[in-house]
């Protein structure tokens, strides 16, 4: 019996996705069957996309069935490609044009207060993620994707990076734990990803591996842009090695993942967080020592905004600059509560005024009251004012 390729999801609860089933045949041309809730509006466009893609992969005879729940072109294309690759050996990639909004690079020191996790293989969540204005959007290939779905998720995430407007959020991907994560990179690196999260990172050696794989891909594809790294420390060993990891090349932020960390300790994650106080402080310390951003773990109760707020306030007081989130409604709470308070703003303003004043007068030494102010203090004050300017909500 001929081999059958299949990819994607279809069902009553599924939205913005489709399931593609393909079987290569010896003759009979392209037999395309489309079942779609938007057939009346998009039949012609879906059929012509399908034909174009089959032609691209040099398929002249096949039975292909598309069961659609309102998927956009980039999703349909990804599902078709994944299905084809199960019945045909090919290295080719069917790429839709990258949208102009997704070609920018990000700065090392940009704000990373909130990073919104999206399951990489669930298209309906990606479409509107950017409108909630997180600082970063993570297309996740790791824990939220079932092992059997890793391949189709890679192709979908690749297409998502090219086609979905994230409205200014930094485009991030969480790859799988190494070594599987190195394969993910081949699908991600050439498509204008801004930052890669490296999960369960325990040694600087692992970051080196990621960097060298990225460099290799960039060289092969002649890519010029920077790709930043955010290792996630999720074990006791990782915490011990965190400074070495933090000062590795291209690392701009160091995150902590408390679910796995507490599991590693054999303890429970509590609301008070005493069990992770050492680890969180260590991460903050290592990150600051390496002059990068310390980023806190996600807060998983999406219904309790008051508890989230308390959590952010503690996190900020420990020295973190941001945290992960798993629901768009968490974003504004996170932004608001990491934002500098009125005392911090006033103090920063005084520092900047004193600095400007000293420069105007040509003074080499800046002082405020009886205190000397050196360059890092000025820089920090400027950061506080920048953060205050964008306020609690929008970038």
């Amino acid at each position, binding site marked *: 019996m001929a081999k059958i390729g299949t990819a994607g999801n279809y069902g009553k609860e599924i*939205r*913005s996705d489709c399931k593609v089933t393909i079987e290569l045949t010896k003759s009979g041309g392209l037999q395309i069957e489309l079942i779609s*809730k*938007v057939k*009346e*509006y*998009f*039949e*012609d*466009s879906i059929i012509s996309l399908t034909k174009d893609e089959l032609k691209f992969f040099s398929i002249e005879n096949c039975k292909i069935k598309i069961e659609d*729940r*309102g*998927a*956009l*072109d980039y999703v349909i294309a990804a599902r078709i490609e994944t299905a084809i690759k199960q019945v045909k050996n090919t290295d080719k990639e069917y790429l839709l044009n990258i949208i102009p909004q997704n070609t920018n690079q990000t700065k090392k020191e940009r704000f990373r207060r909130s990073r919104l996790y999206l399951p990489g293989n669930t298209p309906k969540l990606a*479409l*509107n993620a950017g*409108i*909630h204005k997180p600082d970063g959007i993570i297309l996740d290939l790791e824990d939220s994707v079932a092992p059997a779905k890793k391949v189709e998720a890679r192709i979908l995430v690749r297409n998502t990076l090219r086609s979905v*407007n994230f409205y200014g959020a930094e485009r991030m991907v969480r790859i799988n734990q190494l070594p599987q994560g190195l394969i993910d990179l081949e699908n991600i690196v050439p498509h204008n990803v801004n930052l890669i999260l490296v999960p369960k990172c325990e040694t600087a050696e692992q970051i080196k591996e990621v960097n060298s794989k990225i460099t290799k891909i960039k060289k092969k594809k002649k890519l010029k842009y920077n790709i930043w790294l955010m290792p996630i420390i999720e074990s006791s060993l990782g915490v011990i090695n965190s400074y070495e990891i933090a000062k590795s090349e291209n690392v701009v932020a160091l995150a902590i993942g408390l679910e796995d960390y507490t599991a590693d300790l054999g303890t429970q994650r509590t609301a008070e967080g005493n069990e992770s106080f050492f680890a969180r402080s260590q991460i903050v310390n290592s990150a600051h020592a390496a002059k990068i951003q310390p980023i806190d773990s996600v807060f998983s109760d999406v219904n309790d905004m008051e508890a989230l707020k308390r959590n952010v306030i503690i996190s900020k007081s420990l020295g973190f600059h941001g945290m992960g989130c798993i*629901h*768009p*409604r968490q974003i504004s709470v996170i932004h608001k509560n990491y934002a500098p308070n009125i005392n911090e703003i006033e103090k920063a303003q005084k520092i900047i005024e004193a600095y400007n004043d000293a420069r105007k007068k040509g003074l080499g030494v800046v002082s405020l009251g009886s205190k000397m102010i050196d360059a890092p203090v000025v820089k920090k004050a400027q950061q506080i004012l920048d953060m205050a300017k964008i306020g609690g*909500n*929008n970038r």
Partner: protein
Amino acid sequence: MKKADKFVKNAAGRMVPTIVNGKKVISFMGVNKYRPTHKGAAPRVPTCIDYPKDGNKIVKSLKEALIKSGLKDGMTISTHHHYRNGDYVANMIFDIAAELGIKGLRWFPSAAFPCHAPIIEHLKSGVVHHIEGSLNGPLGDFCSHGKMKGLGYLRSHGGRYRAIADGEVHIDIAVIAASAADMTGNANGILGKHPFGPVSFSKTDAKNADRTIIVTDSLIDFPCYPWEIMGNDVDFVVTLDEIGDPQKIVSGTTRITKSPDRLLIAEYCAKFVEAAGILKDGMNFQAGAGGTSLAFVHFIKEMMVEKGIKARSMIGGSTKFLVDMMEEGLTDYIFDGQTFGLEALSSLRDNPNHIPIDIFDIYDFHAKGNLVQMMDVIVLGSTEVDVKFNANCVSHSDGRMLHGIGGFQNCMLAKCTILAVPSFRDRIPVIKDKVTTLVAPGELVDVIITERGIAINPLRKDLIEATKNSALPIRDIKDLKKEIDQICGIPAKPKLSDEAVAVVEWIDGTILDTIRKVEK
């Protein structure tokens, strides 16, 4: 008899029939252009000595009441929809009519729900000729496919009231389900086993029908007070074990949406209201019970608490949420046209500031004043809008009828009418070049708010000016449409036949648009 005949192009540029179900109708002339000059309806003149001296009008069955009311071919039967998707009464009426061999009835409900699907069989067999009232669910589908013998006639809540009072629709028999009634027909919806709130939709039916039948599952001793329906307007009283399923009254309408995108839309609505200077002490606004509308009220409430603002009144769809707001001192009054949930019901009974209102007072175009006109802001949903701010709430983009008009058109008279809509649903853009069915003329839609941006009607220079320095994503509606089309792709036009299956009436009684038969 043709269902629809002699089509003309009306002032909105839509082709509409001037003869509907054999009767002459007037085409839409433009907003506020048509004023009728005739006198209103003239109900049958009854005489008290023809009614029982002891006031006991109880008959033993609905069938007997219908027979005694003189049920015959071609009559118009009215019902209300206070039991929403849990109503049993309408189906009973037409089952009885079928049993009696009656044909060609016109059903004139204040709204129909999926629970009324059994009436399709009566439409097929000819017991019911056609429905004048909202058509959705299975009935909407049936009508959309051109299977109804007569033409569907869609009116707003206020428009239905107007049509009765104007004499445009004469009701032969009104059957009014009441949660409590006495033997002489005094009745209400707030007492009894399964209360549902004020009987606001049926008051005019009781006044103007030739015969009025009260159906109740809770007969109480005379007098049943408050008497929203007065026994002196009632011909017969019928008691039944069950008249509706109270569990289905709420049916998902009273929970705040959990969708982050819809919450964002609701948040934008609230922020817009604040930026436009509408949020102030003494404001009056409509607080709908739907998911996004309720979320809007939730955000408005947060702002009111933060700024110490108190509203004068809120019109509901009253829910526990509104009642809490009144009890927390955030509004002086609730005007209640429909009640959801036990908390709202007990507030309605016990709190004198929770005022039951008549549809006439809120919505009727021929009231001497109109509550919605006094509302500072109203937030509504919509199935489609277009670049000229026209709105559709009855049909899907494929032309299939989905929802009734409800109070949608009536609410257009508010000082600021906001349509809160997602920019696309299942890849189908919500902002069109031209709405499939015109339900509200664009000049009355003030603001369209989506998760991707806010478009203000260019006619509302005041709102544009007031919000120009806000941080809100205020955009040209054409830019917004362009962005959405880039995401979704441009959908092919739906295939609709020329055959009319229903008309949409504007609040003044003129014909605004025609709904065409769906091909597939």
